[in-house]
């Protein structure tokens, strides 16, 4: 996936690092820390350069990619009244919030582990604005509003001005378009400054290869001092190779509430990162009955589609589908064996609750250049090790594949399964790619 969300803290740090290059005429005092515990916050407060943590009123909130933190009551900005939160109170709050599981209004649930702490910025509602940019279709779009904060989301269509900026638009035309579309309800005294900021914001978004960048609200204080109160950002990580120095070591956290990867998924992801081939595994339901080992990205999708179709049509449900994934790009024999070992191990951990047979789909389209016999060698080696476990779960194996050397591959895997006493059915390109799913599930 090309677009990856980054933490609010990392987004602000990038602003700060590039501020002088982009936002001439404006000031941004980057005061922000990212911590995972109260103790860590107290420790940082003793460091040179972070005296403000002790001197100023603070705001603390989780920095874990999810939004609507205010509505979820996860923004600490007041004790008795807004702007009176001390360092000790912030540290205590962080420890409280991270001590137990948190469930958001959206239903996402998990442990809070990352918090951003910043000075409280006193300001009026009139000083809050909204600005964001992203790609829509083929074009970039800049969104601006005279109102920031939660209000803008509630009246989006009336309150937000969109400026469409095609990829080939010149800077002069872009600047003209932005200036011509500054929201009319921005006070006259601020219009010019806001336009200048919006233009620079767009250039920053563009040059930093953001896929999405939103500041809500951006606060325009006295003397062109800007405060970025809340920020959401996604980077186009395919640009990573040319942005490495500019971005620095940026982390791409997984979404809050997403279950952490299982050790097996991590092991496959690790093998994938070290290989020229592609190895992907996602466990959908560890208790599931139907397990797949599919070669190729497109094929893995149509197998999943077809399993969903036929499971439901034959008295089962989508929960029968245990995993999703693929191997492709000419994996070595040992990589294929490792992948097969992992899938078969997961498949043979739990008995089907309804006492049904396990189904292993070894599918794939007609390969362009992967040697089918070679990859099947790894699967056969895995069968040899795991045959008894597979038999104990009444595993029925369905194979379908085409491509270079497929006849030998199919013959080898059939012979091996027969020799090991495993149930197997084997098909080549004369059979429709997903038809083995029908055969397996209609039985």
């Amino acid at each position, binding site marked *: 996936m090309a677009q990856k969300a980054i933490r609010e803290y990392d987004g602000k740090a990038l602003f700060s690092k590039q501020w002088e290059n982009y936002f001439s005429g404006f000031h941004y005092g980057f005061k922000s820390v990212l911590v995972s515990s109260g103790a860590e916050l107290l420790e940082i407060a003793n460091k040179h350069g972070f005296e403000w943590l002790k001197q100023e009123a603070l705001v603390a909130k989780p920095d874990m990619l999810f939004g609507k933190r205010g509505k979820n009551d996860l923004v600490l900005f007041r004790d008795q009244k807004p702007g009176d939160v001390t360092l000790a109170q912030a540290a205590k709050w962080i420890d409280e919030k991270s001590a137990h599981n948190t469930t958001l209004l959206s239903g996402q649930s998990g442990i809070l582990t990352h918090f951003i702490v910043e000075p409280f910025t006193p300001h009026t509602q009139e000083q809050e604005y909204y600005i964001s940019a992203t790609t829509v*279709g083929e074009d970039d779009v800049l969104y601006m509003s005279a109102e920031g904060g939660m209000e803008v989301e509630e009246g989006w269509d009336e309150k937000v001005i969109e400026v469409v900026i095609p990829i080939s638009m010149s800077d002069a035309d872009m600047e003209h378009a932005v200036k011509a579309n500054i929201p009319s309800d921005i006070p006259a005294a601020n219009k010019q400054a806001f336009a200048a900021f919006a233009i620079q914001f767009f250039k920053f978004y563009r040059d930093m290869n953001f896929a999405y960048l939103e500041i809500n609200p951006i606060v325009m204080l006295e003397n062109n001092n800007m405060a970025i109160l809340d920020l959401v950002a996604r980077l186009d990580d395919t640009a990573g190779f040319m942005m490495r120095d500019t971005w620095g070591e940026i982390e791409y956290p997984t979404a809050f509430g997403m279950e952490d990867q299982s050790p097996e998924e991590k092991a496959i992801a690790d093998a994938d990162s070290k290989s020229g081939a592609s190895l992907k595994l996602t466990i959908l339901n560890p208790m599931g009955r139907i397990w797949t080992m599919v070669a190729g990205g*497109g094929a893995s999708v149509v197998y999943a589609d077809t399993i969903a179709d036929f499971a439901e049509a034959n008295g089962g449900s989508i929960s029968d589908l245990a995993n999703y994934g693929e191997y492709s790009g000419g994996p070595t024999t040992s990589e294929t064996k490792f992948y097969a070992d992992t899938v078969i191990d997961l498949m043979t951990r739990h008995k089907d609750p309804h006492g049904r047979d396990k189904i292993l789909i070894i599918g794939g389209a007609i*390969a362009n250049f992967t040697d089918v016999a070679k990859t099947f060698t790894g699967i056969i080696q895995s069968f040899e090790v795991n045959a008894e476990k597979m038999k104990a779960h009444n595993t029925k194996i369905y194979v379908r594949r085409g491509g*270079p050397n497929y006849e030998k591959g199919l013959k080898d895997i059939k012979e091996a399964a027969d020799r090991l006493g495993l149930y197997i059915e084997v098909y080549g390109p004369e059979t429709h*790619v997903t038809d083995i799913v029908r055969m397996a599930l209609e039985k």
Partner: protein
Amino acid sequence: MTQLFTRDTQAIFWNNNTTAIQRMLDYDYTIKRKKPSVAAIVAPTSGSKFEKFFYGPDEIMVPMYKTTAAAKAAHPHADVLLNFASFRTAYDVTMEALNIGGFSSIMITAEGIPERLARGMNEFARNKNVTVIGPATVGAIAPGAFKIANIGGTIENIVQSKLHRAGSCGLVTRSGGLFNELSNIIAINADGIAEGVAIGGDRFVGSVFIDNLLRMEANPEVKYMILLGEVGGTEEYKVIDAIKAGKIKKPIIAWCIGTIAKHFSSGVQFGHAGASANAEAETAAAKNIAMAEAGMFVPESFNALPSKIKEVYEKLKAEGVVTEIPEPDMLTCPSVRKSKEFICTISDDRGDEATYAGFPISSLATPDTGKGIGDVVSLLWFKKQYPKWATDFIETVIKTVADHGPAVSGAHNAKVTARAGKSVVESLVTGLLTIGPRFGGAIDGAAEYFKYADDNKLTPAEFLNHMKKVGVPIPGIGHRIKSLKNPDLRVEGLKKYANAHFPSTSLLDYALTVEQLTTSKKENLILNVDGTIGILMVDMWRALGYTEEEINEFISSGTLNAFFIVGRSIGFIGHVLDEKRLQMPMYRHPMDDILYDVQEAEKI
């Protein structure tokens, strides 16, 4: 453009991906293409000038260049660029090609080009009316005409999937892996495809479904289309709009994969980078419904796609829209092929009669053919038929340099060896071995330095200064006794011939201005015979249309020396035969002609 490719389409392949190129050439041979589909390879870091490939049972050489610009200049008719650069460089390679111009389509295989770059690149190509296939694609195929790289897989699968000849379906998919699968399904359930494109899996690809389907709509070979879409994006809706607007009238069978995604709210990425639904309309289910409502043939499920294809195909057949396609003859690539150790591009002794660059020896040998030794040299050395003024010049050179008496080092060596009782060949070789920078080398040197001065527009004075800095006396200038007043008649003859017969003598003209300056310093610093030959050879090649780079290569590879070697061999052999005839005894140099100065060696 109603067709992406024809049987004459040729490509420039960026990156020396030998497996993929071989697959293309196997395909070409199988379908009996006249010319290989790969005209040239661009390999920036390779020092080779060509790569060998099999063409059926034989081998051919595909020329290799360091830059796209050089490849395109040498093969202007090759209008497809197959960009196999990595995701780091694929953008630059494409943009360079678009700026060079002359490409009708560019295929990009790299996955993960930065999105902003991809968008700019696609837009730039669109404005230049260039079809971009990809990025992140396995390519496209026009069965029976042209196939990109690995698409279609092995040659066995290609024939099995009827990709060796045009059928009647136009196929567009996003996925490359499923492209093969669809070709197979279409071969089994219908009559194969007329043109197929895998548009690529990245979020921003150049040509999208609608671009390809509109072209297929206009292509009379295509009778119906199959569209295999994917969850995510709104490209399928553009096709729906085109149908509604009446721009597409041919039947379309369509399916979007990724219906599974509806079962998982978030977090699982099914399929490609482009495959993520941001809105309900982008889900596979919504698109399948919308496409059916627009009148496309949409099966119940992916698994039911084959029967839907069969149904539509049979219907079109019954209506007479599609007709039986005759199976063409094919050639079969041998399964075992051996690469050749040696290559010969100048002569061939395999036929009835041996040939020189395609000309039977008998057509050149006897006087009635009107051909001389200059013609033989032009065929065997340059693989070209030089015009008469040039072959006459070559002969003039050979005659002019044939001998220069017994005292020069080569002739002397040959005579001493002959007197030692050695054979003609041994004696000749000892003579030839003296030819080099100091003996005969002035021809090379004159050509090199005068050409350098002329190329860099140095005035004669600047040239003299330059040579002083390099620390080399100007090759080709100076004679022991001859001067402007007492000219070398060989030189006069060469100049006269060149003035009368050469279309132009730019380098000679320049050299004469240098001579004016040098002779003003010293009388005997004239342009000598070696210099005149070297310089006129350059003028000859210029007039024959060679590029400056090609001429520089002639000079650096020692071609000028070769004229001296051939000519002077005649003289050396004469001296050797002279010795044999005279039966002169073993030669021993007189001791009184040697300065002896031997000191006792110091101990260290």
